[in-house]
């Protein structure tokens, strides 16, 4: 990656938290990631955008070592990621938020947030729940601690999921289309929480179709297509002067203007 490619990139002087080097991922014969190189610096909010099936979710899952890669490598804090079977210690240092929330339906909101520290770090129940309550306050759900996921709206569920990931005090947060399964009216509440996180300096990788968010909160935008990085840059440049035809195609599909 040339310095020119990083022009205007905030924090590019700092060492990368995550570094992708020619990452290749296949499913059977299908190549989902076809040589992806990119980097994420501390404090950055990197937004991944691109058409459906282009490999964005796959990249996030590989980042969290939920799936093994077939080629290249992913370096997290200077260390190459281990295979999925050995990755538990690495995963606890990354928080992940899923499109379908994936809250644990048999646990209350508070227990969902507390279960990570309790199970993984062995934190005492009282301490874990106290911290969990504080996180629920932070995402604006102080009064929903005792509710079960089935009793919460989509937006509320997703905010619990964010609190759950934060409970492990991760060094980086990975978001996979966190608002695309939400009612249009509850999208905002989740984006607000994410924006606040970004302002606090959390390093974040966000797969999203919310262009307003990418434009206003993202500090770096990476455009994906067919398992490759097509273009990257600061939001202003990517959205206003996309260099690549494929980026322009993507934008033209995205917003309907009749």
């Amino acid at each position, binding site marked *: 990656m040339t310095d020119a490619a990083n022009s205007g990139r905030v924090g590019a002087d700092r060492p990368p938290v995550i570094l992708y080097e020619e990452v290749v991922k296949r499913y059977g014969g299908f190549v989902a990631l076809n040589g992806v190189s990119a980097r994420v610096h501390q404090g950055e909010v990197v937004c991944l955008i691109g058409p459906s099936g282009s490999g964005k979710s796959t990249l996030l899952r590989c980042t969290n070592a939920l799936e093994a890669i077939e080629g290249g490598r992913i370096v997290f804090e200077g260390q190459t990621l281990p295979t999925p*079977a050995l990755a*538990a210690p690495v995963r606890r240092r990354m928080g992940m938020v899923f499109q379908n929330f994936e809250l644990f339906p048999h646990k209350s909101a508070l227990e969902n947030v507390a*279960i990570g520290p309790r*199970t993984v770090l062995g934190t005492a129940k009282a301490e874990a729940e106290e911290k969990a309550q504080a996180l629920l306050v932070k995402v604006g759900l102080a009064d929903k601690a005792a509710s079960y996921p089935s009793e919460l709206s989509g937006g509320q569920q997703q905010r619990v999921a964010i609190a759950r990931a934060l409970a492990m005090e991760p060094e980086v947060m990975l978001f996979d289309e966190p608002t695309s399964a939400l009612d249009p009216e509850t999208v905002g509440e989740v984006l607000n929480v994410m924006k606040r996180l970004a302002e606090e300096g959390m390093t974040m990788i966000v797969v999203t179709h919310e262009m307003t968010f990418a434009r206003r909160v993202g500090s770096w935008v990476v455009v994906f297509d067919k398992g490759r990085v097509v273009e990257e840059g600061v939001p202003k440049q990517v959205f206003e002067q996309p260099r690549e035809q494929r980026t322009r195609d993507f934008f033209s599909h995205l917003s309907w203007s009749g």
Partner: protein
Amino acid sequence: MLEFDFSPLVESWRFLALGLSVTLGLSAAVIVSSTVLGVLVGVGRVYGPRWLRLALTFYVDSMRAVPVLVVLIWTFFAFPLAFGVTLPPLAAAFAALTVHVGSYVSEIVRGGIESVRAGQMRAALALGMTTSQAIRQVILPQAAIRMLPPYASIVTMTIKETAVSAVIAVPEFMRSSEVVSSQSLRPLEVYTVALVVYFLLMFPVARGVDRIYRRLAHLGRS
């Protein structure tokens, strides 16, 4: 047209009640043990290494293929020949029914586990849990709730299968009914009552579990 005479049943009520208590006790014991076995086998079939999965699949499919009657008599007679230890009828029935019902439970456990979305496993792993922590804390509790309705059928099936153990003379309800019928020479009355008793035993189980399930279902819906 013959008259019915239920007096032998009334006179022998203590004997029949004893048989009923054996039926209940044996059913309960078989349900507990086959649940343990079924969970182990079910989890092994989903998460185990390949050789284990193949072995367990063979066991489960064999049990699905052979009538419980045959398993039961076989256990009773083959066990002493193979191991030189005689099993009293009750122990033989317990062992045979556990092995048989356990295979059915394992199928339900496997179905329950597989019906939990892959995303739940990912979410647990993403928190830094190990696979076994994720299975115990996240997957199995949800699978358990989803398993409730088929599990109710397993409970009733177990009660029915204990009746078959009368052929190796386990002193349970079916056997007591046979004794009373053969000594009182009133088989029709005895078996009619047995039919009703079994129904009264099983119906509340099925309905009760159903009701519990309806209350818990939302905790298993991810």
